[in-house]
Structures are given as structure tokens and as C-alpha cells.
């Protein structure tokens, strides 16, 4: 079973994931945005195409926790609505970072039935057991690192903007 590399292993070493992803996030100004909605909207502006965030059922998803499907009209990000909200955040952010970094499609997934099956697909699968190559794994590591950095920025001091004003 091929495991998604831990981005920590690559920080400041032979494969500088962290530096590249941090630079892309900073260039997009995503750290200043206090909400997931703001981040996805900014990524949509950079990508030049609408991004649709969809919470869907999970019966057929197995270990798939997030999915990016690129169609000619829009980018679609799916998360499982039965997953905890906090977990869905990191899954949505993971897919958004794929889009931000311009990762290509090379991962056809026939297991997921969808009417827009001709599009680009990139799934988030903990444990990375779907047979990705080395390069694919690095894409996943970049997306996962970026997702966690963005999650940190959403949780920084002051936290929830509504709570900051009313709490």
C-alpha cells in the first residue's frame, strides 16, 4: 500500500514542498482570509472558473474523503457530509490547494460514478491506497500540506470572526 508522504519529511530537504506551497499561498493572499468561503472564492478567481463545493452522501466512497472533478464549466469539490465538519474543512482545502497549484489530472477513478465523468478527477484518500505514482504522491503531499497550513490560518488567534465580534 502506497502511503501519502508526510510533508514533514520533505520540509527543507530534497523536495521543498513546504516552501513552494507556502509561496503559492502567500502569493494568492489566502492566509489573510478568515473563512473557507473566502479562500475558495479567491482560488476560483485565480483559477478563472467557478468552484462548486458540494457535500454529498458517502455510501460508495470507502476511504475517499474529498474529490475534485474538473469540468469545462466549473471545478467541483465534493466532501462527505457525514464526516465531521472540521474534517470536511481540511478535505475541501486539500482539493482547493490542488486547484491553486494547478495540479494536472492523471488519476482516472472509475469507481466514482458521476455524470461528469469526462473531467479531471483528483481524490483525497487517507493512506493513499489507490495506486498513485511517485509524482502523484508529491501532488497529494503538497495539497495536504497546503490544506493544513490554511486550516491553521483559519484557526489563528481571534478565530471565528463572528465570535470575535460577539463572543
Amino acid at each position: 500500500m502506497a502511503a501519502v508522504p508526510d510533508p514533514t519529511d520533505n520540509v527543507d530537504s530534497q523536495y521543498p514542498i513546504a516552501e513552494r506551497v507556502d509561496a503559492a499561498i502567500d502569493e494568492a493572499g489566502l492566509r489573510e482570509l478568515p473563512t473557507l468561503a473566502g479562500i475558495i472564492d479567491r482560488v476560483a478567481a485565480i483559477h478563472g472558473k467557478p468552484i462548486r463545493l458540494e457535500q454529498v452522501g458517502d455510501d460508495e466512497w470507502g476511504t475517499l474523503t474529498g474529490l475534485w472533478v474538473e469540468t469545462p464549466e466549473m471545478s467541483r469539490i465534493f466532501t462527505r457530509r457525514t464526516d465531521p465538519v472540521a474534517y470536511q474543512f481540511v478535505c475541501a482545502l486539500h482539493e482547493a490547494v490542488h486547484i491553486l497549484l494547478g495540479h494536472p489530472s492523471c488519476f482516472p477513478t472509475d469507481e466514482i460514478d458521476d455524470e461528469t465523468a469526462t473531467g479531471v478527477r483528483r481524490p483525497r484518500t487517507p493512506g493513499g491506497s489507490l495506486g498513485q505514482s511517485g509524482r502523484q504522491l508529491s501532488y497529494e503531499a503538497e495539497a495536504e500540506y497546503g490544506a493544513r497550513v490554511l486550516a491553521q490560518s483559519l484557526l489563528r488567534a481571534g478565530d471565528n470572526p463572528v465570535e470575535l465580534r460577539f463572543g
Partner: protein
Amino acid sequence: MELLETATFTVLALAFCIRVPRALKYREARLTCVGTGLGALAILTLGSIIPQSVLDAPLGGHNLLKLVQTSLALVAIWLGAQAAISVAPLAHRMNAISLLVIVALPAIPFLLIRRTEPTNAHFLDHNIRQFPAWVYATLYLGALIYVAMRLLFAFRGRNEIGAWLIKLGACAIIIASIDEETNFTIQLLSAGPRTFAPVLSDVFNLVFYLGVCTMTSGIVAYTSTRALREWQVPRVLDQLKSEPFAQHRAVPVRTAPSQLGELYLVTVTTRDLVVAGDLQLTRRQLRRLRRAERIIAHSLSDAPQHKTATVTTYTGKGKHD
């Protein structure tokens, strides 16, 4: 009614006091802090704590206090609405000019009222058949309804306890204002039996002050929830980190996360292991994980708090449901 006014003042004053430390620390917290303070002052002018004659005397003793009271109430609710609107993704901001208009417009007809009687708590009821008094009341109540509706819409989609209390309070203020406007209009037109007036007036007082109390309780609920979570985070983090599975992976970010951020990383990593089938949690461990996930979800500003499927499209220029 004096008891209700005193209770409302107490809730507002309490909310103001617990907001002050946050307001000193965070600029964003100042709107609601000042709003609760001004709200408390507005209630103070009702006379249940300090006699109205004492407060109205420096203003000439001819009920100018009523205008001060309604102006304070309008500014207070405007500040609360502005705080909510500032974080509502689709809401248009209300600028300072809107505040000036809202406060100044009712003042113009108020100054045209023939105010000959000395300070009286029922000054407006006694003079409502003067047309300027009715216009003043209508503009004031209309402004209250407008601002309360803006507040209500700014909280649309939020399901925290605090948000529900604030929305409930805003609804009560809207209902009370409509009731009072109906009362004043009937009196102006002399259209209904006089027995309706005290009933409608009592309904206004009851619903309005309960609404203010409920809305302020929402602010207190937000404050309490945050304080409780800040107390919980280090404890829940220690609990999770003491579990054997939490030792498996290092934190994969370069900058040191906050305690809440660290809790998030441990939680996501643990949930990944569970989803991948690499980790079986005991019931106690699962309880701890879920508790951590709940704390994090409440810390994320736009976390969907509901379980139904949602679809949101982001165009790069704002979201469209």
C-alpha cells in the same frame, strides 16, 4: 414593567462588563461592547433605576429625554447589526451616514412636538395625536424594524445558540415595533376603542424588552461559549496527545501552531487513520476525538452547522447558493 426594565438593564450592563476586556484586546469586539453599553444607558433613561425627572432636568425638563432614549436605542442596535453584517458574506455594509440618517430623521419631527408637560414616562402616548409625534414614532419604529431585519438577515444560516438568541430577539423587536406602530396609528386616527391602547402598549413593552434581553443573552452565550472552549482546548489536547496513536506522526506544518491549531492537526491525522482503516478507536477514544472535532467546528467561522447536503458555488466574486 419596572421589573422587566431593571432585568433588561442588568442583562445589558452584564454583557457590557464581560465584553470590555475583549474590546480592549480586539478592535472587532468594540462594536458590540459599545452597543451593549449604549443599550444599558437607553434602558437607564426609562426611570426604573434613576427617576426620569432627575435625568430630564438638565435637558430642560420637557421630555427631551425621550429623544435621547430612542437615539441611544437606535445607535445600540445599529452597532450590533453592523458587527453582524461585517462578517456576513453577502450583506452590504451600513455606512456611518446611514446611522446619522437613522438617528437624525426621527429627531426632526420630535423637535416639532409641542412639549409643554413636565417629564412624564407616558409623554409619547399622551401626545401621539400631535402629527409630529406620530411621525417621530413612525420613523423611530421604522428604523428599529429596518436595523433589526438587517441584523436578522446577517445571522441567516448561523445555527449557534448565540445566533438563535440574537435572531429571536431581533424578531421580537420587529413584532413589538409593528405592535406599537399599530397602537399609535389607531390612536392618531381615533379609529379603535380606547381599551386597545393599553393592551397594545403592554404587549409592546413585554415583547420589546424580552427581545432586548434575548438578543443580549445571545451575546452572553457567544462570550460564554468562547470562554468555555478556551478553557477546554488545552485539556482536550492533552487528553488526545496522551493516546498512543497521537505519537505516530509529527505536526506537518513549519510554523508552530496555536493550541487550537495543534488540536486540529492531531484530530485530522487521527481521523485520517480511522478512515483509512489503520486505527480502531475505543469508545472512550472516539468520544475524545468527537469532542475535539466539535470544539474545532465551533471555532471555524463558516463551518456548516447542519447535516443536510449543501451545494455552494464560488465564482471568484462572491458565493452563490
